[in-house]
């Protein structure tokens, strides 16, 4: 019982840090209109292009996307990611068309 109490006692600190970090990030995005406009513009593009939307939603969640990707290996990389990152077949197809049209 005491153990569980101590667990909950320590939770507010990381939660506070998480909320503070999120608020700071949000505040900065509001204060920088150029970056914000760019992000919004990117988001607008995402909506119109299913491949780019799937790319932004899935790629780079674990690691930075590679700087260069040879067209010869896009199929291999995407099949690798379909297994490892649990991409849906539709997302795999859309991203493949987006990266190597």
């Amino acid at each position: 019982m005491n153990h569980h109490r101590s667990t909950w006692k320590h939770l507010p600190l990381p939660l506070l840090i998480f909320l503070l970090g999120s608020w700071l990030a949000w505040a900065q995005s509001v204060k920088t209109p150029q970056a914000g406009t760019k992000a919004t513009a990117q988001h607008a593009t995402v909506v119109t292009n299913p491949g780019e939307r799937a790319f932004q939603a899935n790629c780079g969640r674990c690691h930075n996307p590679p700087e260069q990707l040879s067209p010869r290996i896009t199929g291999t990389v995407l099949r690798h990611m379909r297994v490892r990152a649990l991409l849906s077949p539709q997302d795999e197809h859309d991203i493949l068309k987006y990266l190597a049209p």
Partner: protein
Amino acid sequence: MRSIISAQLKQTWFSRFTLGFRVTGCLLLLSAPLSSAQNVPIVSGALGFFDSTNTGVNFFQPVAAPVVVAPLGRHFLAESRFDLRGFYEPKNGTSGPIQGSFFRSTQYLQLDYLASEKITLVAGRFLTPFGTYNERLTAIWIPKFQDAPLIFPIGTRTTGSSNGVMARGVLLARPLFHIDYIGYFSASSSVPQFQAGRAAGDRIDVYFPGKRVEIGTSYGRFLQGTHNNSTGVHFWWQPYRFPLEVRSEYAHGQHAEGYWIETAYRLSQWKGPDSLFGRLEPVFRMQQTFRNSPGPGDGLPAANTQQADFGLDYHFPHEVRLNTSYSRKFSSTGNANIWDVSLTYRFLFPMWRGHQ
């Protein structure tokens, strides 16, 4: 007689050591005639140099982590990752001549069969899919911090890899949400390079692509020796509007439980991700473990532990990254300062030219 036994042992060791490479080589040869224009096998991975000072003891590790991926026809994929590293430290802990040892491990060597839109069957050696850290963040070019979270051993015993079969896929893919699943069974093995525990488990994730939010739960049952359960939940959030990444996990094991929460904020909103400051990424991680009962050999801290990690990463051009961090650990067994510096270079290229 002794020399014959010694020769046989050496031969056995050599056979085991080369087994993984031979299997990979065979799969690559098989894949050659099956490769289409975009499906040339790849060699990827990273080279790294890690330096760490933990409570005054300094050690460093040069690491190579090659990844080989080869599609075989339309439905099969062979993939593997190896970890080759040296471990060097002063002979007497903080002084004396440097002595080192060499470690190698096969982290995964698996054959995937893409059976249908909803199911992929995997056989071979694979990363144990408990939580998110082991499967997604253990490749040396990915994590923001050099050290794994304190709760990493929960659910990933004995080596983080499993030998057996796994089914995984996307159960439901809607524009608003995805439901992913993984189920696996692993057999026990004490063969060097392929050590694993007998275990079974599953993971279920719900991902909201519109918000880039993921929540999930993991379960593992260790079926070797004293059977026990491990459970875990995770939460990831990477908003579109700003380059913030939030990752967190909670895990409960037989003798201990704990959590970690990590936030990374790349300063790419200052003149873009390729600017001098835009390549900087401050990182913070908070983690705690709580010991319920003594669990010798479970890899977790012996007493309740709190640790705060402060990191500053720099993303150089050409896939080179510098990670630096300072950690302060508080525990009744002794407080500690941990300083880490690591440099990694990630590579990715086709195995041969292939067709244009």
